């Protein structure tokens, strides 16, 4: 299966969309906009999983797609929007690292992912290896987002975007056992992270969810 055949092209298109949305996540300043883009990425992930289910004839992937859509495109973004309204976070948040440098670092990471994955997977089917390169890029960009953002909600979005890349990799490898179970387990973790942000806020322990404020509690002073 190569370029020019429908299953391959659509899988590529969806994977490429996810990567593009990862870049958009990287340069957005507004917290609300970041949540919207994350919802879009979740929806594309669901479409990619469903497409792989169709191409591979693996009906369990439809379940993965359904769960991804319900949680990542609907529920989590909804919860984050409520949180943003409650916290009054509509202002822009400057990344710790600057937009320009983080975009350059992002491009470098994508190049790294391609250089790492393509040569060593030469024996695998083309659809799997190029999907993996895209998925690894999404994972690395999610990590970069977690590094460059200091705001807790944006870090959580980075973690969730990273996990989107993981699910993309898992559905792209034909015949991978336990995909539904593994993706659900990963999702449970994300739901708890989001719940954690909620709980901290409800208790009003911190005035903001800027993690730099947490540092003074480290207790290393004599």
């Amino acid at each position: 299966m190569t370029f020019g055949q429908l299953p391959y092209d659509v899988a590529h298109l969806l994977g490429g969309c996810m990567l593009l949305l990862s870049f958009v996540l990287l340069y957005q300043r507004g917290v609300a906009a970041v949540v919207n883009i994350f919802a879009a990425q979740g929806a594309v992930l669901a479409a990619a999983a469903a497409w792989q289910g169709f191409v591979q004839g693996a009906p369990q992937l439809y379940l993965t797609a359904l769960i991804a859509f319900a949680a990542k495109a609907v529920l989590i973004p909804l919860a984050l929007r409520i949180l943003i309204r409650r916290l009054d976070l509509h202002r822009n948040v400057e990344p710790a690292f600057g937009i320009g440098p983080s975009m350059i670092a992002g491009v470098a990471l994508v190049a790294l992912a391609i250089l790492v994955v393509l040569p060593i997977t030469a024996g695998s089917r083309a659809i799997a290896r190029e999907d993996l390169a895209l998925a690894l890029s999404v994972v690395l960009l999610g990590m970069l987002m977690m590094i460059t953002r200091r705001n807790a909600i944006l870090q959580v979005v980075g973690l969730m975007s990273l996990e989107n890349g993981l699910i993309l990799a898992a559905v792209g490898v034909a015949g991978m056992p336990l995909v539904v179970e593994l993706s659900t387990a990963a999702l449970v973790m994300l739901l708890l992270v989001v719940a954690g942000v909620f709980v901290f806020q409800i208790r009003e322990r911190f005035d903001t969810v800027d993690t730099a404020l947490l540092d003074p509690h480290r207790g290393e002073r004599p």
Partner: protein
Amino acid sequence: MLLGMPLPWLLVFLPWVGAIALALLPKERPAALLNIGVSALSLLLALGLLAVPEGEQGWTRVDALNIPLLLLGFLIGLTTAIFSAGDIAAERFDVLRLRAYHAAFQGFMGAQALALLADNMGLMWVAIEIATLASVLMVAVHGTPPAIEAAWKLFILCGVGIALALLGTIFLYLAAQPFVGHGDSGLSWAVLQELAGQCDPGVLNLAFVFLLVGYGTKAGLVPLHAWLPDAEAEGPISISAVLSGLLLNAALHAVIRAKAIVAAHPGTVPPGPYLIGLGLASVLLAAFALWRRHDARRFFAWSSIQHMGLAAIAFGLGGPAANLAGLLHMLGHSLCKSAVFFGLGHAARRRASQKIADISGLIATHPGLGWGLAIAIGAVAGLPPFALFASEYGLLTEMVGRHWWLSLPLGLGVLVAASAKLHTLQLLCFGERLPDVAPPPGAPAWTLVPLWLHLALALVLGMALPEAARALLAAAAGIPG
């Protein structure tokens, strides 16, 4: 429902059923007793593993490598439950926190058992994730700002870590995919190890990098260690004992299993040097960081980083002798470190502080506790005749024989760390005599039993290992390759 299960699954689900029961139990005393009861029953069942034939059954496997770790894990679970029963009044939990604490404790016990028992690498990943979630809950249970910061750090760093481990697991399947076809066997450790020789070495390399970074984060290897000192310093004291005693072992066990798969292919980049590199970095950084700690629990958390580094070096070297030293080191470290945390817990309650300067002069005021803590710290520092001396000696001789130039930084790290621990021992136990701040909590004498029991076992492990146990450990040392 539980009765029909095979023994390995029973060991996982018994604690989880206990966790559900404990989540419903609002009274302090019955909950603590039920916690002890569930832990004791789990330990008894775990002893039954010795009679189970080795090999994999479905998604689980029982072999010489995980039997000692499981037995030790459930033993520490029981002693920690006993310690916790004596200490729980001083934690001043409200009803909700009490239920969350006990449920998370047993939930964690079931998850670490599953992580050790799993043959399916996907299942192992899920188990380590559940253990992470339970430990986040245990660390955060007090809800104070430092506890929440520690839990948040644990959550985010280990969240990224286990995400990368999942990616490594996916790559592992990708490598084996042409040979196993569809079905659950594609993630079985035994199948993967057998097929590794035919797999693409490049994909195996990539898988190992992600598995090492992912599970290495949970094992607290430098530079992925940042969550560990905070987590061990902020939760309830009994949690530090299970975190350093069990969670780190479960994570390192996952790294060892991954190494066994990758090393089975002659064409891969050898995984050993990566482990040695991370291990040496952990030992050296921790050795110098130990000198700058003022908080006793943070101090011993850094010591856990150092000991995990030593075990990682041993498994990185490979071969029967070094693997045996590494395994002995994991077992000895769990015993001695949880003994230290039991002693430290009592001391910190009496002085109402966990700063080293505030606990000074313990032997003068509480001879029994003071000497117990002093001996436990000596054991953690690697003094003879305890298990950590035997394993460090074995590791150093093996290192001198194979890469003598690496034994210089290794020896330096071990010496600097040991002297830092002896310095702290001197401050805590023999230093200037300070009066108790808090009135004695009236803890009965039996709450010190776990401390002395661990020291006795560490002594047996170091000096007079029974023949059957020696044979088991020797068989285990052959597994990682």
